[in-house]
């Protein structure tokens, strides 16, 4: 991980794209402006972080803007990791897709679309990947109910059978 000073210098290099830096438990994170994510990742690639390890989504419910996308970058030659985060609101959940520069983001962005509803512009094939194609709703959002079957205890059995009729 770049240490705290290295992180600040990196953020300064990113200019106005970097909104915030977080250095927590020896891990460096840069929060960026969603509109400039491709440029940010290109800059970081030029700085040596050439491997995109993971792209995943977070739901910050109830704080707005709610939907977050997290990019984990890795510099293999210096064994250095950095995290890039961005946050988009639910009413305008569009982020530019980075699949062209980083082919690994293909399935991972589809998963974020499926689970959170973040729409990636420019993605070659944005469809649901884990849920059935015609599923409605975005399961991993925090206000989506967890679902499941009711657990029927013997004491409730009569009530449940009645309710089924």
């Amino acid at each position, binding site marked *: 991980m770049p240490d705290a000073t290295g992180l600040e210098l990196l953020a300064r290099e990113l200019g106005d794209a970097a909104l915030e830096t977080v250095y927590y438990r020896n891990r460096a994170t840069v929060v960026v402006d969603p509109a400039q994510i491709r440029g940010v990742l290109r800059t970081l690639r030029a700085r040596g972080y050439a491997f995109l390890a993971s792209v995943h989504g977070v739901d910050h419910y109830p704080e707005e803007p709610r939907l977050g996308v997290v990019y984990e970058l890795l510099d293999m030659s210096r064994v250095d990791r950095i995290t890039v985060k961005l946050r988009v609101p639910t009413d305008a959940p569009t982020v530019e897709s980075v699949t062209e520069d980083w082919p690994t983001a293909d399935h991972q962005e589809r998963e974020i679309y499926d689970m959170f509803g973040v729409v990636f512009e420019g993605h070659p094939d944005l469809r649901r990947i884990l*849920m*059935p194609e015609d599923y409605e709703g975005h*399961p991993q959002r925090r206000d*989506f*109910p*967890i*679902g*499941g*079957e009711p*657990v029927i205890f013997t004491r409730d059995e009569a009530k449940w059978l009645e309710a089924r009729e």
Partner: protein
Amino acid sequence: MEIKREPAALRVQSLNARQLLRGGDLEGANQSAHLEDTELERYVEERVLTTTLDKTVAWARSNSFFPLGFGLACCAMEQFHAAGPRMDIARFGFEVFRASPRQADLIIIAGRVSIKMAPIIRRLYDQMLEPKWAISMGACCSSMGVFNNYALVPADKFLPIDVHVPGCPPRPEALMHGVLKLRKLVQNDPDMGWRERYDAVGTEESPLDA
């Protein structure tokens, strides 16, 4: 024991059944022995295996299940071990895991059934030929298992299951116990009428029938 080589001795001896039943033996009918009533019954029981055709068929079916090789998740690993060298499923005659549902008569649903997979499993079950049985292996397909959430469906909801094997994952011994229980079930040749509740009697002939 001396072997008689005279041609007369090599001729097939057609024996009168009556001679046999009346107490005769293979080397020459002993006409003097007569058995009546209960003695006759006992004599016959000791020597002749009587059965009905149904029971024979049930016995044959139960001892030669052709499982459909259908593993979904972790339980599939324990299913491999049940077919493996230590807990050998082949000693019961069930090692022929068929790849095609049309050739199988037992589907062991091993693993978690997601909502995307459920119609496919149902389709596979429909394509199996009668008579067919289903074992639900593991907690996830018997009930919801560890994961009580939006993504899973217990196999009971869309498929008639004959034996549920609990465990997460069940040991190979537990799976064997379940399969042997099914074997006993089949030997007693049960009436499968309850499967009509699932509309699961019969075989899907062609994709257009679905």
